[in-house]
């Protein structure tokens, strides 16, 4: 059954966020956001790290400014040590 546009967007955003953080912020590929390991949400932690690096508001959430930054063309070298 066709996915409602909003849900489709959300899915796309999650993909974008995960791929970006795996590429540049060492988010482990086998991490699934809905699994909490030791109570820590790794994806949110990595998101905060990325927001801090770019001087964005550190929310841990994929807000508009963060998604906008992730969509900018850039260098493929990671921002943090792999």
């Amino acid at each position, binding site marked *: 059954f066709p996915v409602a546009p909003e849900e489709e967007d959300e899915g796309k955003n999650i993909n974008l966020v995960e791929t970006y953080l795996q590429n540049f912020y060492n988010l482990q590929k086998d991490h699934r956001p809905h699994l909490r390991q030791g109570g820590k949400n790794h994806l949110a932690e990595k998101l905060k790290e990325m927001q801090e690096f770019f001087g964005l508001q550190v929310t841990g959430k994929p807000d508009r400014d963060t998604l906008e*930054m992730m969509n900018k063309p850039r260098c493929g070298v990671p921002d943090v040590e792999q």
Partner: protein
Amino acid sequence: YVFTAGNPKWKKTNLTYRIVNYTRKMRQTDVDEAIQKALNVWSSVTPLTFQKIEDKIADIMISFAYRDHRDNSPFDGPGGLLAHAFQPGEGLGGDVHMDEEETWTKDGRGYNLFIVVAHELGHSLGLSHSNDPGALMYPNYAYTDPKEFLLPQDDIDGIQAIYGQSNDAVQPTGPTTPQACDPNLTFDAITTLRGEMIFFKGRYMLRKHPERSETELNFISLFWPNLPSGIQAAYENIERDEVLLFKEDKYWVIRGYDIAYGYPKPIYRLGFPKTVKRVNAAYNDETTGKTYFFVADRYWRYDENKKSMDHGYPRKIISDFGKIGRVDAAFQKDGYVYFFHKTTQFQFDPRTKRIVNQMESISWFNC
């Protein structure tokens, strides 16, 4: 600036490079020139030298590649990832890979090859990404006209911390990135733009939306790639939804992202005498439709409806605007005119012709 983890560096200063293949998007001579210029960015501030070789294995191998090119870091087609490079070392070490599916150019269209290669060479030499938005080693692409490019101070400090200073007698310095809350911040020009305020400084613009607390810093080239840096005066003609920007004896008219056709034009078209070489500041009085231009210690008044200068000008600034004297930048908002000179800002009431307040230049940035 940030060193690559483990502080890798080349043990020698005379490095070799080789252009393994060429993109089909540019002439080979333009690719050679862009890469040569990118290498000069780093050799001009350190003892490093780069010698081009044609066939053997060079320290820095530069190539254009597609998608998965067997280095565990596949490219992703147009946009997104543009290029990557490897830290100093043997084998892949120092090598630069460009995504062949990008639109590589030598100007502001697509992605400027010089800018991207210069950034990647920073990695080849041992630098990682800087979080200084004005640095060459900032991760995101930002176009700067290669003719105007100067290696920012942040990158100079980083590469010299690895390889030492240049052998030149005079040490090169570079531009620093304006900080909105720096009390010493001065402005080249200021204008309103569809309800926002734009503060011009060098190749940057600080953008302030009245309903957002933070100030956004961008390159001027992000919005208007064909505009020069160092804008000297600016004003908005709200009625025509136009912003006029001035630098030396030329001016541009912009509407949103677009630069009106046929610009820049000489400022003399507006009625300035040939003795005027540049405009320091300007503002448009929305109620009277008059625009005030400030040049050194004098000012002109231009009638936007008649499209000509009013008679009886220039006049001395000090005779009509009080102790303001010289003006670096000016804009009008909510009936008041705000004049900036160095780090001081005067709030002027044109109705009573009195200065009603004096503030710091950065008072708009919620510091």
